[in-house]
């Protein structure tokens, strides 16, 4: 275990990084092209998706003690 992460958590974080990178690219290009509606919808959708996934990675199924230790 590296960084106290199990192997499947590494996979999950890789997915998170990829989703975040794609979302940033999408939103930045839309802002540069002045397509604000697309940028806004992209921001909302990606925030929801990435937020949910990040919650799953950080909190779902973890014992309360571990969550407190991690947050502190």
């Amino acid at each position: 275990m590296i960084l106290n992460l199990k192997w499947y958590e590494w996979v999950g974080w890789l997915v998170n990084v990829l989703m975040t990178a794609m979302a940033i690219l999408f939103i930045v290009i839309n802002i540069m092209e002045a397509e604000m509606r697309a940028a806004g919808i992209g921001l909302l959708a990606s925030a929801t998706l990435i937020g949910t996934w990040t919650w799953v990675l950080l909190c779902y199924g973890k014992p309360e003690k571990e969550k407190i230790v991690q947050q502190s």
Partner: protein
Amino acid sequence: MQKTETQKKRASVILSGSLLFFLFWALMLIPWGNYGPDAYLTKGKIQQAESPDTVFKDLMVPEYKGPKDKTFVFTGICNEKIKVPLEAPVNPIKKVVSDRAKQSEEIKAMARSLGADLVGICELNPKWKFKGVPLNHKFAIVIAEAMPYRFCKKQDEPIKAMVATKAALDFYNQGGRISLFLADSIRKMGYPARAHYESWSQVLTIPVAIDAGLGEMGRNGLLINQAYGPRCRFSVVTTDLPLEPDKKPKRMGITEFCEICDKCARACPIKAIPFGGPTVTRGVVKWQLDLQKCFKYWYQGPNSWSRCLVCMTTCPWNKPDNLLHKTGSFLATRSPLSRWVLLKTDDLMGYGDEVDTTPDLKDLEKNLKAKKEG
């Protein structure tokens, strides 16, 4: 025990989510689900279209009949008049063509230097000639002039709308100019050649352009390609100059995209574009537009044009030329899933919702006059 079960549940959720993510992108990126290699689908015997006199009789604009002697006059950079005939005698001294591939490249370079955005070469299928046309050329050089995206979107001022739709006609003329000069150059090389554009055409330009690999048939009756969407205006040069036809490119899945999308049909102000699947017209599988309806809306009488570009503006393939949309166009060619996802994304983002509603010229003149007086 409980901890292990919770951990197992956590692992399964994370792994399923990750697997779903990679599976989704695999299905989006790996090409599958397109039709076979022939970009143009035919069913049964292909029949030639009626003669241009019949086809263009009701579609001709009286004030644009063109020169009676079929000699077109262009203005050079020093304001000199350059006359280019539509048909002319061929130079008796023939250029020897030993390398067809090299000759094809030279012709394409010539067309590009004249201003063509896309050039394709194919063998001329006699079925794409109009009936009764005495044309026996072997090859066709297809020239595409792409209109810039800024002319093919909702315009926020009437004067911009005027400029945009005038541009739509100008690009036909530009394509015509390129094809006239190209045909004239080929005749000077000693080979017969003829330019075909607008009502001077003796061939159907769209199927010839498909054969040349410049795009695929769209629901709106326009040829759609990955680079420029439906914004291209085509002209053709037919010739006997020995050329090497281009290899047919792989299918882009544009026709397959149109089967699930009906944005242009919904947006068309006079419902000239059909809904549903394609039908067979003269042995060709395509969406048959009501051309009379369309043209009568586009041209409503002397100096009265609706200048409609709605089907072009609303098409999901009509996008600005940037990294994001190039990626989208690339993805849309890959698989049925990617086409569906991109279509829904297109709807969600509101692309093509604000269609071009260009004002009539008389209204514009009236409004400008009222503004001056007011």
